[in-house]
């Protein structure tokens, strides 16, 4: 009970503690103690701005997702660089594709949209008003359905695991 009251979001607090250590750029007892204090206080102060935070389970899933995304970013960036450098602008098959969503948590949808943007070749440019589809712009997508499937399979599936 006390725990819940004073540490409503342990994960957030942990993240903040890490951020603090990042910031002060040293892993010392002083830094951690002070960071821990802040990590408790700041979520308390800001609790009202994020009242129903999603339950996020499975740290392993999160890590897995993170690594996948990171890898995709690295790889696909090279491809985009190639497209930019070596393809004539007119020859790019840019198009908008619609990705229907199964996710309902705003946090999850936002993460997915962000992932899509950060992985090259695609940018989430809009969301349907009822948050049930994403509008994704592809820089060069001869196969639109492939893109959609890729998104749903690689990212949405994993996010579903994390957020539900």
């Amino acid at each position, binding site marked *: 009970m006390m725990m819940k009251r004073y540490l409503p979001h342990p994960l957030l607090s942990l993240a903040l503690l890490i951020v603090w250590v990042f910031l002060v750029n040293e892993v010392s007892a002083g830094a951690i103690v002070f960071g821990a204090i802040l990590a408790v206080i700041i979520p308390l102060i800001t609790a009202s701005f994020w009242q129903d935070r999603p339950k996020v389970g499975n740290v392993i899933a999160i890590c897995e997702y993170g690594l996948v995304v990171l890898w995709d970013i690295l790889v696909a960036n090279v491809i985009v660089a190639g497209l930019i450098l070596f393809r004539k602008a007119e020859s790019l098959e840019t198009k908008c594709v619609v990705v229907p969503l199964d996710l309902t948590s705003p946090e999850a*949808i936002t993460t997915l949209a962000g992932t899509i943007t950060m992985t090259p070749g695609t940018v989430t440019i809009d969301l349907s008003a009822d948050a049930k589809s994403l509008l994704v712009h592809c820089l060069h997508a001869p196969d639109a359905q492939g893109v959609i499937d890729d998104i749903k399979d690689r990212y949405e599936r994993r996010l579903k695991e994390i957020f539900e």
Partner: protein
Amino acid sequence: MSLTLIVLLPFIGAVLPAIMIRAGRNACAIATGSVTLLALILLMAKAPAVIGGEVFQVSYDWLPELGLNVTFFLDGLGLLFATLILGIGLLIIIYARFYLSKDDPMGRFYVFLLLFQGAMVGIVLSDNILLLLVFWELTSLSSFLLIGYWKHLPEGRQGARMALAVTGGGGLAMIAGMLILGNIVGSYDLSVILQNADMIQASPMYVPALVLILLGCFTKSAQFPFHFWLPHAMAAPTPVSAYLHSATMVKAGIFLMARMWPVLSGTPEWFYIVATTGLVTMVLGAWIAIFKHDLKGLLAYSTVSHLGLVTMLLGFGTPIAAVAGVFHIINHATFKAALFMTAGIVDHETGTRDIRRFGGLINLMPIAGTIGIISAASMAGIIPFNGFLSKEMMLEEAWHTVWMDQSWFMPVLATIGAIFSVAYSFRFIFHVWLGKPRDENLPHHPHDPPFGMWAPPAFLTILVILIGLFPAAIAGPIVAATSAAVIGGALPEYHLALWHGLTPALGMSIIAIVVGAVLLMRHGSLLSATANLSRPDAKAMFDCGMAKLVTVTRFATEKLHNGSLQRYLAITIFAAIAIGLTGFYAEPDHTAGTRELLAVSPAAAIGWVLLVVTCLAAVVMHHNRLLSLLLVGVIGLIVSLGFIYLSAPDLALTQISVEVVTVILMLLALNILPKETPKESLAGRKMRDGVISIAAGLGIGSAIWAIMTRELPNSISAFHLANSKTEGGGTNVVNVILVDFRGFDTFGEIIVLGIAALSIFALIETVSGSEAAKRLASWVVKNRRSADRHPMMMVIATRVMLPLSLMVGVYIFLRGHNEPGGGFIAGLVVSVALVMQYMASGFGWTQNRMKVRYHGMIGLGVIAAAITGASAWVAGLPFLTSGFVHVHLPIVGEFELASAMGFDLGVFLTVVGAVMLALAKLSQVERMAEHADINRHPMDYDPSVQTTTPEKEA
């Protein structure tokens, strides 16, 4: 002491009528009269001694540095004038009690009258010419009030203003003259000045001083060519005319000439200026008086003429002429005051002052008629009245006087003046009192006035007769005493008597009376003969002059202050360039610096190109306001990078933080303001502005170039660097300077921010009910707008960023003393984090979750800073003295606690409070324009909450 009291009594007593008027008109008049009476008694108590040759003096320090002291003295001249002022003043007070109607505010009248009286007494008793100037100008002011007493009459108002302008202006000239006089002698005390005639007349500044002083005298005494104001001042109630314009104020100029006679007279300059002016005034005034149909106008010009006469006598510069002048002053005061009062009676009883409507009034008003006729006869110089005596003396002196080697000139003109004088005096007698009534339909049916009204003139008329019959006995002593004072030496041989034998003067007198009578008989034909002569109308000229003055000043002022900020700024900037260049090139002593220059790195060069292009783009494209905002943001970015490059991390951080808040602010503003700046500058204007701007840029650029290329002299900052760590407890010297070495600057700086926020709050809070509110109410959103107010992705992202940003804020705050950072930047970081919430999740939702009041934060911040500063007092140290300790805690380790941190906390709180208050308040205007309600939910639609019914926008 009692001398001072004589002067002060009227001033002190001036409150009495204001109070006593509540007790009734009689009480008011009695109170006023008793003040004057008391002063008069005090004066009379000294009269015998003064006539005996004694001089009373009293002196108090007022402003000794300047030589302005309260010094009074009473000699014969002072006595004469003070007696006239107080004596006739008393009569006037009585007369006015009956003259003023029930509708006239009598209390006010008496207040003004007493003020005037005090000022006049002050003039004649002052022994210090600066003090005299004080009273001199006071008479101008109080007479302004008296002349304008009947404020509903346009003539009164205009006359008052004209009198003020002329006499006030003359007074200002006299100030200059008196200061010169004082400068020559080395003292402003009259008694000293009067001893130094030789020194004054030998001084090269004698003529300027003389002219300036005479300007004061001539304006006050209505001498040609300043005579024009006096008749217009006749719009005043008759008691005022009688008092000011016959007996007292106009004689102030005469008094001063008499007062200064010993030191100023006797030179050719004096003679030609004063005597000629007097002569011209005498003749001209008398000539005009003949044709005046207004009773008071006639008397007014006759006064001008008589003042000219006295002036001329004083101008002769001979002792005997001075005696004649003094004597005429007395005589004129008696008959002219009586005449004015009589005129007032006529006006009062008949309801008109037009001479053409009178005739035979003596039958209806025998008492007034008798008084009037006797007084007028005296004015005409008819034996045996007093006017005859002094006129004879005048003619006698004129006979002896040679003007520009012409011995005929003075006698002839003096005789002509006398002829005219007889003519208008007879006109007063024959056209008003005698003969047949010319108008049966006078506004009122005239009869003799009450005793109170005719007694004062009657008393004066008795004096007219008595002095005429027994001049030596009645007027002799005072004339002697006065003349002695005027001449400042031995009295000449003279006899005050009706009969001096068959003198040239008698002949001239007789000619005057005969020719004058003939003139009057021919009055009608004279009138028609002169009707076509173009006479300069002084009033029209004055009015025209004033109108021209107003037009010209208005034109100049409006042309100069055309309300265009552009002009004001252009001039200011131009002035800055000009004065800077003047300073720089005042002497050719500038040497170029020898400091070694830094090498240009490629990055720096590119940064420079970026800046140049962006700046130029910002000017070229400034019509697109959003774009210019973006460009300014880029400039800010480059400047920040420049600061970092040039070893100023704190500056960079601050610039970056300030930049974003400014952008937000400007965007909020731009939503209301037009999005485009129309192209409306003309080519010429662009050219002008371009030249000014380039000059400014070149100036500043060259200045900083000159500075940067030379070595920095020993700077106080060496001390800051040396002591920052050891004494200030911080390694970030900039921060230690801000919170410690120059913490007071920072104290002021946060207050600036706080004030800015409070002012912004006030500016927007007062929108309601104003024109602005109406505009906002009818505001039409013309831009195409996105359908979602609060995009979901952004809401989520900012939720994550809020705690992160707060963390960063704390970090920046804590490290400020030793590393780049500090309370200000931390405050901006936190503010921006909060603003992000407002932007993403909407004002309503966010505001509902804010638990602090921004106002309070500002106040608290300032107080925190002040308390930190004041806590040093406890230790007996000056405000803002900082202290620091190194604290050791288990686990945490050692850290430093500096009082400067408390100060920085104040900075932090103020910044957050100020920024948030300003932004929150500004966004209120936007909402008024949007006609939108504040939102209760952070997102437009939350897909995880299925029960939420989607809401349409309001």
